[in-house]
């Protein structure tokens, strides 16, 4: 090995010889050129051993020149950018690229786990199901760790991905998938009609096989022709060309998923550019022109480095000007052998022999062999490749003859081509066998998809061009675009005859079908012997087709072999299932921008900036970020802060941003009737200027949500919901209105974001509110009693809404102003409240106070409780229909044994309570049968000087005064608690009415 590109042909190739790119493989330095892939650069440098196989750690080289590569998988890049299992054939070379071989220890050349190969007779398909069972405890401790360490391929970086990703949605009339001869013609035909066309090509260069063959198209070389078509397409404003973009999935409704490798050919993404971009392409029509994938031949030791697909050999020679060997044997069951021989000869590579299993190879093959001075061995097969870490020869067996060993370092093989029909099956379409194509073609493709070129089993170049043009033209026509069908350029005649050969009879040594997962033909035989011979079973039992290449080179050979051993025609055998993605897709690309803080939107309250200035600590409340508490310097911890805030409210006045509660504005003559049907309690009787607490059920009779709703005018209500359920309640109302009761004349919309709302609570709240609202509004108890509500102005002319409602149990108001005034309003409230000692309080203090007051909230509104459970059963109006009425009457929901909401206080005042603790009767054993409920919410109450809790206890309300155990084994705690009324503070509500 050297860094001198000893394997580079003197001329030709689509590479830029004027520039050299340095790269490292396993630490060794090499050079290549722009236009190279990592694989072609390795070939050009004479590197043959590139990886180790999954199970037996056999030495492997480069098999292909495309996405189907099973062997040449490397760890690309280093550090946090390391990408395991990267196909060297798909990596566009850049200056400074570093790659490492994987799945070997200690080194690629000397891999200790290669001993596995010696044990291969034991490691047959499915061997692990039959052993490692004794002793039982050994599996996790001994066997499994060993297996895990041996399994897997590359190593993940183990660090956060430093790059960024983005997503894009695109729409087009015609999506063309693949820019080979067929795809380019399709795009051209559709583009010329004026249709909107998107052309996606996974390669960095458009042209497909035309880049790799020496066939002319019209008067041009394939590459020149492709460049000319690409240039014409680039001039069309309605055509979008996306190179380096793989369409990897087909989804319903004409949605195609593609990933664009925006920066993967660069050392790292440039500023403002993502590493990759996910495209969601919505296409009215699609033309699949994804080409075909060549099949290996299945003979002994067919995995030796130096055994290569014939088409790949031609790619390396013609497209990359890289010489994959010095002396070749060509082994093919089809007419393309002629082209392979000719291209090898043209590149100055000696062709030792052409081995054709057909008794009578066609003239083209004969002539090519003759011209190249190669020996044609007809009616013969290669039974074994010779060599370890590199090919040294091939054993050829003519029918009825004896083995002939020829030395060679390159074996170009072709078992025929398999149409790349994967995407036709993503919506459940079953491929069907085509004897003509010698492969499976689309059965029932997705709606709107046509298939052209080799993907449709049309292998001759002329047919590819024609079928592409026709498909593109027809697709555009389906979208209403007309024009003239482009002329198809002339091509040389080519023949594509092939004779099936799924495996070589009489082969010697391990004959691999699935290279990456080390599945051989005998594994398939074993599977069949054990009853796993149906394709889906054989796949799962042998793991054939389950590696990173998803069996792109393996599946059809495997089906052929299974058909043979089962004695069934291939056409009726069935297949396995193609699934997205067509080639593996980075998880980061599927996630796009959405990670870290951007994972989900954050909603900020109107007072957020102000709260930040106050040093508030914030907490997630659903999508919202809310001030949790407002620490002051010198405070011992959050508990001290919260206790101070509670005490300040209970003894003076505090203010809290409650804008996150869902707010819904309802208008219309039937608004009250609508509320009647939504809530369990009454609404018609609610007077203008008053608010009322309401409870909503789901139709299954359990509590859905609660909140106060105020009547601002005869036909105008403002509803509040819990923060958590705001969106769900609105949806529910829309459903009820649009689907259940369209006759109701009611209009409503969310106004949550429109209004900033602040709770001003505490004995001195009235004084603060009086200072804020504009005269002549009267906030006296008589003028504005508990549960009053009104529209007014405040802060000298700002429109506002004032509600006298209390969550804390104190004299409390909620004042709402348009959110654009929210920031100024909180500052105004603080200023006007200063004389009264106002303090801001956060959701933590709010929570403490609602527990002291016994109000149910999140922990109690858990979707498993009834109104009765929560002590709200008496609100139910029995003489009206409302959502949930009927199902709430089921026996189990009315069972008196059900846990009911009660309060708890520790018997030992110093004991701390924990939400999530379960209740056990004093003398009960600690088992499920004795489980009597659980603690739903707890708080340290500064008002009482000890912890208090709410909980759901079986027959709770009959048990007030009883002592029960609150057991909390996950925190190793158990204490005694006394059951009490949930309203710890002011059960008569005198404070809030005061």
């Amino acid at each position, binding site marked *: 090995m050297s860094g001198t590109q000893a394997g580079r042909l003197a001329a030709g190739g689509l590479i830029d010889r004027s520039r050299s790119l340095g790269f490292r493989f396993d630490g060794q330095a090499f050079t290549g050129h722009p236009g190279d892939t990592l694989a072609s650069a390795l070939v050009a440098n004479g590197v043959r051993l590139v990886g180790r196989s999954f199970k037996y750690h056999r030495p492997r080289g480069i098999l292909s020149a495309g996405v189907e590569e099973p062997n040449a998988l490397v760890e690309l890049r280093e550090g946090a950018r390391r990408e395991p299992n990267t196909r060297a054939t798909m990596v566009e070379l850049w200056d400074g690229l570093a790659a490492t071989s994987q799945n070997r220890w200690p080194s690629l050349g000397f891999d200790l786990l290669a001993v596995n190969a010696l044990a291969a007779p034991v490691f047959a398909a499915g061997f692990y199901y039959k052993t490692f069972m004794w002793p039982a405890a050994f599996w996790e401790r001994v066997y499994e760790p060993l297996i895990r360490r041996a399994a897997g391929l590359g190593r993940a970086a183990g660090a956060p991905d430093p790059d960024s990703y983005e997503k894009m949605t695109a729409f087009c009339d015609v999506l063309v998938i693949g820019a080979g001869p067929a795809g380019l013609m399709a795009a051209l035909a559709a583009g010329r009609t004026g249709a909107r066309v998107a052309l996606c090509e996974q390669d960095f260069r458009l042209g497909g096989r035309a880049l790799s063959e020496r066939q002319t198209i019209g008067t041009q070389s394939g590459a020149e022709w492709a460049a000319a078509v690409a240039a014409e397409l680039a001039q069309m404003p309605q055509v979008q060309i996306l190179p380096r973009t793989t369409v990897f999935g087909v989804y319903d*409704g*004409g949605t195609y998923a593609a990933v664009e490798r925006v920066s993967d050919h660069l050392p790292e993404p440039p500023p403002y550019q993502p590493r990759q971009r996910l495209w969601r392409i*919505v296409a009215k029509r699609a033309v699949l022109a994804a080409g075909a994938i060549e099949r290996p031949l299945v003979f002994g030791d067919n995995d030796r480095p130096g055994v290569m697909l014939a088409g790949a050999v031609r790619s390396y020679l013609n497209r990359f000007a890289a010489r994959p060997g010095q002396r070749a044997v060509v082994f093919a069951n089809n007419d393309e052998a002629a082209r392979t021989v000719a291209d090898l000869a043209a590149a100055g590579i000696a062709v030792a022999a052409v081995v054709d299993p057909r008794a009578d190879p066609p003239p083209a093959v004969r002539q090519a062999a003759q011209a190249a001075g190669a020996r044609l061995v007809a009616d013969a097969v290669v039974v074994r490749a010779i060599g370890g870490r590199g090919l040294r020869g091939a054993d050829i067996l003519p029918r009825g003859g004896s083995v002939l060993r020829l030395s060679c370092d390159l074996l170009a093989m072709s078992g025929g081509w398999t149409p790349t029909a994967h995407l036709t099956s993503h919506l459940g379409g079953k491929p069907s066998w085509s004897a003509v194509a010698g492969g499976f073609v689309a059965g029932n493709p997705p709606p709107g998809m046509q298939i052209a070129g080799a993907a449709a089993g049309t292998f001759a170049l002329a047919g590819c061009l024609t079928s592409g043009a026709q498909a593109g033209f027809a697709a555009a026509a389906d979208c209403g675009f007309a024009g003239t069908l482009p002329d198809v350029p002339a091509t040389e005649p080519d023949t594509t005859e092939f004779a099936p050969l799924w495996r070589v009879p009489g082969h010697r040594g391990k004959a691999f079908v699935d290279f990456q997962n080390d599945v051989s033909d005998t594994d398939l035989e074993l599977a069949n012997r054990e009853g796993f011979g149906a394709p889906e079973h054989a796949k799962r039992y042998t793991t054939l087709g389950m590696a990173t290449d998803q069996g792109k080179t393996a599946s059809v050979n495997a089906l052929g072999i299974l058909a043979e051993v089962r004695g069934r025609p291939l056409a009726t055998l069935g297949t396995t299932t193609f699934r997205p993605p067509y080639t593996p897709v980075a998880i980061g690309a599927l996630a796009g921008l959405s990670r870290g803080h951007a994972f989900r939107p954050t909603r900020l309250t109107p007072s957020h900036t102000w709260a930040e200035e106050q040093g508030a600590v914030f907490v997630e409340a659903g999508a919202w970020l809310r001030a949790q508490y407002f620490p002051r310097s010198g405070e011992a911890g959050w508990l001290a802060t919260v206790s101070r805030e509670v005490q300040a409210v209970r003894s003076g006045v505090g203010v809290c941003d409650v804008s996150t509660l869902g707010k819904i504005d309802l208008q219309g003559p039937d608004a009250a009737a609508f509320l009647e049907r939504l809530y369990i309690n009454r609404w018609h009787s609610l007077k203008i200027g008053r608010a009322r607490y309401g409870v909503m059920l789901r*139709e299954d009779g359990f509590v859905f949500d609660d909140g106060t709703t105020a009547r601002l005018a005869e036909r105008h209500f403002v509803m509040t919901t819990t923060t958590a359920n705001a969106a769900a309640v609105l949806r529910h109302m*829309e*459903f009820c209105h*649009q689907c259940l009761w369209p006759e109701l004349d009611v209009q409503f919309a969310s106004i949550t974001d429109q209004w900033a709302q602040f709770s001003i609570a505490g004995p001195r709240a009235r004084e603060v509110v009086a200072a804020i609202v504009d005269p002549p509004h009267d906030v006296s108890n008589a003028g504005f009693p508990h549960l009053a509500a009104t529209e007014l102005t405040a802060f000298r002319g700002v429109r506002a809404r004032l509600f006298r409602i209390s969550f804390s149990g104190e004299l409390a108001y909620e004042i709402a102003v348009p959110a654009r005034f929210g920031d100024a309003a909180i500052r105004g409230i603080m200023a006007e409240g200063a004389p009264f000692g106002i303090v801001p309080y956060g959701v933590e203090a709010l929570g403490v106070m609602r527990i002291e007051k016994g109000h149910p909230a999140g922990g109690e509104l858990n979707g498993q409780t009834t109104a009765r459970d929560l002590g709200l059963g008496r609100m139910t109006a029995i003489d009206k229909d409302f959502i949930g009425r009927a199902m709430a*009457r089921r026996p189990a929901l009315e069972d008196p044994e059900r846990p009911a909401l009660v309060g708890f206080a520790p018997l030992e005042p110093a004991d701390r309570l924990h939400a999530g603790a379960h209740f056990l009767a004093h003398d009960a054993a600690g088992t499920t049968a004795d489980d009597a409920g659980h603690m739903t919410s707890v708080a340290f109450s500064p008002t009482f000087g000890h912890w208090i809790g709410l909980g759901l206890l079986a027959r709770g309300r009959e048990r007030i005064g009883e002592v029960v155990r609150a057991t909390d084994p996950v925190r190793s705690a158990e204490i005694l608690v006394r059951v009490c009324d949930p309203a710890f503070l002011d059960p008569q509500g005198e404070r809030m009415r005061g």
Partner: protein
Amino acid sequence: MRIDCPFCGERGIREFLYLGDATLPRPAAPPEDQAAWHAYVYLRDNPAGPHREYWQHEAGCRAWLVVERDTRSHAILGVTAAPGAA
């Protein structure tokens, strides 16, 4: 999957919210007729084939729609607005 909202035009399902079977009318029966309510709230035909179902164009016009869709192929056979949507 894409749903042709009668109001907004065709949109991807990311904008829609699914509720389920749209063939069941909410019973007019009294709560005592528990069988009727049980059937409404809990029992479903759950067919393999055409299914009339509620979707809301939640991130669009917020209309509730009745979509007829084949549950085997996901093919959308028809879309209409719920009675109170328009």
